[in-house]
Structures are given as C-alpha cells and as structure tokens.
C-alpha cells in the first residue's frame, strides 16, 4: 500500500471550482435582481468579511477580541473624513481602510503583549476610547454624526451596484488573501499556533510576527467592512458604528459556523444572514433565539457546524491542509 500527501483532493477541486462559479454568478446578479435584494446581498458580503476576519484572529491565533468594532467604526470614520476633504467617496473607502490597517500596526505592538482575557477587555477599552476620540471631531459633533453625502454624485442605481460589486470584490480579495496566507509557510505556523501555541513556539515558530500580520489584516478587513456599511447606510453616528453588537455578530457567526475553519466563518455568516432575514421581525424572541443558539453551540458543538461536519466526514472544500491518501488501486 502506498500513500501520497496531497493538497488538491477531488473534493477541494470541486469546492474551489464551485466557489468560483458562485462568485461569477454573484458578480452578474445585479442585472437580474431587484434593488432590495442587491442591498441585502451587500449586507451578506459584509457579514462574511466580518466573520472571516474575526475567525482569522480567534480561530487561528487564539486572539479573542471583543473590540473589533474599533476598526469597524474607524473604517467608516476615516472614509467620511477623507471624503469630506474632497476625495471621491469610493477612493476614500479604500484609503480609509488602508489608514486603519496602518494604524493597527502600532496598536498591535502593545495589544499583542496582553494575553487571553486581558487582550479581550483591552480591545473593548480601545474601542471605547476610539469612539470618544471620534466624537471630539468638530465635523462629527458628538453623537450627531455626519453623512457621506458626496456619494450622491453617483446616480442611485449605479451607486447601489458599485457598492455591491465593491463589497463582493472586497470579500473575494480578503478571503483570497487569508487563504493565501493560511497556505503559505506562515500559514503552517498559524495553524500550529492554533493547535498548540507552546508546542509551536518550542519548535521554533515565532508567534508574535505571525499574529501581528493577522491582526493588521483583520483590522484592514473590518475597516473595509465598516466603510462599505457606511456607503450603503450613508449616515454615520458614532454610537451605532462603535457598538459592541458588531463584535457580538462576529462571535455568533464564527461560533455557529465553526471556529478555526476557513469554510466555517462563511457558513456562519450565511446562516446568520438567513436567520436575521427570516426572524428579525419577531423582535425580542429573535434575540433570545440568537443567544440560545450561541449557548447550545458553545456547549455541544464547540467546533461549530462545519467543525462537526468536517470531523465526521473529513470533507475539506478548500485545500488548506495536507491530506494523506491511499493511492493503491
């Protein structure tokens, strides 16, 4: 009996091919569907970005942050600030996200020294400080906020589609970047850290540098999500963008989908989106349902839906790990 170690299994080839098909179909979708659905799908893409970025931190580096709304709010704020100076709003979104990514580097220098719960709470504190600082800007005027009105230069339909394609492109690029990172040499280190940080360190893996890169990538991605959310909502009010609800959403999506699984975060985002679409109108019961689901998953399916599926069937749709397969015929 001979064994081969391979990345590309038949399943993962089909998985990647299927993903490409879905993305292609989504890119053409605005021609076929109504404006309400375009808006909703834009929200779905933003959820996928949020879930994937939080998963990258918590699932792979063990960095459980409850202050990621810092980057979400700052991304939206930077966009509105840059656009106010006369820059095209779509360019401002990219510049704003880059600016937040750059800012995340010095932040990581001291935040990553904190461990576990200290890191979680520290991030929350930072998010509150960020919100207070933004409120001091005379353009924002405390809680009054401001609006990204320069977007009005674009016609309603064109703008809706541009934001949709922007969100789709941002989601695809960020997932691809994360995928590439996880497949690289670095990715091996990341997955080693996920499995056991002490053991990985003892084998010469340098967790700090790896964690820092993911921290900055996550900050950039979440800032871009904030900028996209602002583009489709137009109004910026510090209270709603720096709200901890954003991180709560991220945690829910990743927990239910499957923490530390690339596919899990995407599945979680799609599930959350579906539940919200169908049940949000039920008000309080919807919130109770979300909370109960999160509790059930953390108690009985700690690896989430995808984790449970993958453990039982060995399915891996995206070729991230290596597989030992029996090649004897």
């Amino acid at each position, binding site marked *: 009996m001979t064994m081969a170690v391979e990345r590309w299994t038949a399943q993962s080839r089909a998985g990647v091919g299927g993903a490409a098909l879905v993305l292609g179909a989504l890119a053409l979708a605005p021609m076929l*569907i*109504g404006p309400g*659905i375009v808006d909703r799908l834009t929200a779905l893409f933003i959820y996928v970005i949020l879930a994937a970025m939080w998963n990258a931190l918590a699932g792979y580096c063990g960095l459980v942050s409850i202050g990621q709304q810092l980057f979400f709010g700052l991304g939206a704020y930077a966009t509105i600030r840059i656009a106010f100076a006369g820059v095209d709003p779509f360019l401002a979104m990219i510049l704003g996200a880059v600016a937040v990514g750059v800012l995340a580097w010095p932040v990581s220098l001291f935040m990553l020294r904190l461990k576990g719960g200290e890191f979680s709470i520290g991030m929350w504190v930072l998010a509150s400080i960020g919100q207070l600082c933004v409120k001091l800007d005379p353009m924002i*005027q405390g809680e009054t906020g401001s609006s990204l009105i320069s977007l009005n230069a674009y016609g309603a339909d064109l703008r809706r589609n541009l934001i949709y394609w922007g969100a789709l492109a941002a989601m695809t690029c960020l997932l691809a970047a994360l995928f590439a990172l996880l497949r690289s040499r670095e990715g091996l280190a990341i997955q080693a850290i996920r499995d056991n940080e002490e053991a990985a360190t003892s084998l010469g893996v340098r967790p700090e540098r790896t964690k820092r890169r993911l921290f900055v990538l996550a900050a950039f991605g979440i800032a871009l999500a904030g900028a996209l959310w602002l583009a489709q909502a*137009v109004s910026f009010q510090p209270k709603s963008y720096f709200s901890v609800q954003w991180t709560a959403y991220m945690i829910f999506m990743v927990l239910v989908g499957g923490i530390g699984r690339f596919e899990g975060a995407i599945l979680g985002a799609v599930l959350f989106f579906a539940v919200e*679409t169908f049940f949000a109108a039920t008000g309080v019961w919807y919130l109770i349902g979300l909370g109960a689901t999160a509790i059930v998953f953390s108690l009985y399916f700690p690896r989430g839906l995808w984790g449970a599926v993958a453990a039982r069937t060995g399915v891996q749709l995206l070729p991230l790990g290596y597989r030992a397969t029996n090649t004897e015929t």
Partner: protein
Amino acid sequence: MTKTSKGANRMTLNRRQIMASGLALGTASLGAGRVLAADGDPIRIGFMSPRTGPLAGFGVTDGYVLDQVRAALKGGLTIGGKTYAVEILDRDTQSDPGLASQLAKDLINNGGIDMMLATSTPEVVNPASDACEAAGVPCLSTVVPWEAWYFGRGAKPGAPSPFKWTYHFSFGVDTFKKTYLSQWAQLETNKKVAVMYPNDADGNAIRAGLAPLLAAGGYTIVDPGPYETGTSDYSTQIAMFRDAGCEIFNTFPIPPDFAAFWQQAAQQGLHKQLKIVQVAKTGLFPGDIEALGSLGANIASADYWHRDFPYPSTATGIKAADLADGYEAATGMQWTQQLGATMALFDAGIEALKAASDPKGKAALAAAYAKLNVVTMVGKVDFTSGPVANVSVAPIIGSQWVKSESGKFTYDTVITENATDPNVPVTHKLLPYNA
C-alpha cells in the same frame, strides 16, 4: 456575548421576496422585487418615527394622528382632476438609527413609496433623509433643530445646499434665542444665567451657538463646563451657581440627568434663589415633569406646538384644541406637543402633493417642495425664504408647566410668550419659580 440588542435591524425583506431572489438567481427571471409605478396606482407615503425605545415619548401620539389622517384621506386625494388613493406605510424605528436606515431603504426599494415623512430626533430623521437623498425620493421632516439636520448631514456653511430631495422644517438656535430673551424679560432678575449644557450634540451646539447670543442680549452666563451624561453628583456646579447668585437657570438635559440634578439642587437650596428655570429637551412631554413631583411646578419650557395654536390642520381640517381633546378622549392620556408637529408634517406633505404637477413624479414633487409656502398646524412652512435652501424655520413658543386647573392631570403647559409667532395667543404671565 449576546448583546445583539440591535439584532432586529436588518429585517428588510419578507420570506416571499427572498424566495423571489432565489428564483431570480436560479432562473434569471427579470425584475423580482421591483414595484412598478403605473397610472391608477395609489400615492404611497412612508412615515417614520420612534414609537418604542428610549425616544418613545415622541412617538406615543403618532398612532392617533395616523388614524386621523387615514380617515381624512379615505376618499383619496384629487390632484389635477385625477383622484388618487393614498396609502401610508408607517414604520417604528425603535429609536435606533441603524434600523431607521434599513427601514427607509426598505420603504424605498420594496414599499414603492412616492414620498417620505420623518419626525422626531436626529436618530430617526437624519438616516431617513440620507436614504431618500441617496435614492432620489422626496422627503420632508421635522422636530430636529435644523442645524443638526443640515450641518449634521455634511452640508458646509456658506456653500450651496448639497440636498436635492430632502426638506426640513423645525426650530433652530436663533429661534431659542428669541424665545428665551422674550421669556426672561418678563421677570425682574439680576440677569445672571446658570447654564448646564451636557457634553453631547445638543449641549455643545447650544454652548457654541446660543450662549454667545444670550450674552449679547445682556445676560451674564455662568457656565461650569460640559458635564457627562449619567453624572450622579452635581454639588460643584450647584455651589458655583449659588455663590454667583444666579437667578435664571437654563439646561438641555436628558430626563434622568435633570431629575438627579434638580433633586440635589433642591436639597442644597439652589431652587429658592432661582426665578426662572428654563429647561429644554426634558419637559417637552408631561411625563418628564410629573416625574419630578412637586419640584416640577413652574418649570419654564418651550413648545413647538400647543393646543392653543390658532392654525387648523390642512390635511384633516381638525382644530388644535380638538386634536388635543380627541387624543385625550381616545387614549385617556394627556395631550403632547408632538400631536401637532406630526399633523403638520402631513399637512405640508399633502400640500406639496397637491402643488406638484405630477404627485407620483419624484422630480415634480421635489420641485413642489422647493416652492412650498403654506400654513400648517404648527404655522408657516416656507421653503422659499429659509436661512439655507431646503430648510424652513418653525416657531418655538415660550411656555410654563403649572398646576393643572382642570385637575384631570398633574400639570398643564401654558403659553407665556410668542416672539417667534405673534399669531399664537399668550394666555398666561410667566410665574417666578421660587414664588
């Protein structure tokens, strides 16, 4: 970890529409979810206000007003010889600006509205206006200081108005100045004004805009600086006001902060030296004042509508006093000034529909708004002569909460001055607080 309190936000499509989206994706069927406007279609009006959540005090009367408007429009509206049915799609924003934004987009994309009406606080009005401006849907709003609506949405001072689709009528900083100067001149005081302006949007705007105007009007402002919402100990400020010998007090607090401050002021004897206690934001509605117990008597306020206003509603024909009485009879609750403001929103909106060359043509309706000059339940709404384009300044009338004469409720609000609209009858003289 499950603090998803805003989770109810994103519901914008119903099940059928999602099914439609699946169909559209799968079978490439065209135009699912689109609402096509055709002749014979009703005129659809979106209406957004906060009816639950922390801002519910504003929205509590809206259900009653909506009933009156729907009843008046039952036979439709005849415009240019053609009769249109009118549908009002009302939405509760739950006091959440994120939800307001989603609901506005849902009304525009899936409700097929021809016009939006929005009222009460920037948390409702600004996201609704932004969504309409973005989608090119005419929108009229009220009950937000016009500066917070206009500059708070990114307009630059001195530059031409960036808004093409959204219009707003409400009071502003200058209206407050006129009202306060007229109100305070009624009593002999040493003109020393103790001010408590919080560190929030309203507080900072008032400190920057109103305080200098009052100082120019001959008043000495004693300002201990911004306080944070939720402060529990105000003894420093109270001591400062006492030592300065202030006889007038002005504040823009949220109700719980004012209750805490005012109880401490009473314990420390400040209330005995104050002749005028002029409170904004808290005290718009009777419940805020009742909560203060006996300390609520003779607090001065300012009203954007009152049951003694002389203007009937153009949309429904209801007179001011009848609207207030009708509400009390129907609900058993005391009337509030929001009754008239919401009604005025419908008055102005329906006048614009009547004036438009095509009420279902959005550009024609926006053009009608730009030329609108009508008298509504709160008075004049005039977009031809505002301080900036898209804005009409509405009056705010000085008033005072006094022990109820009829005895049906604890306090009544009575009109004590009318500087910003001389047509409103002044019925009472301002009483000193410490009398």
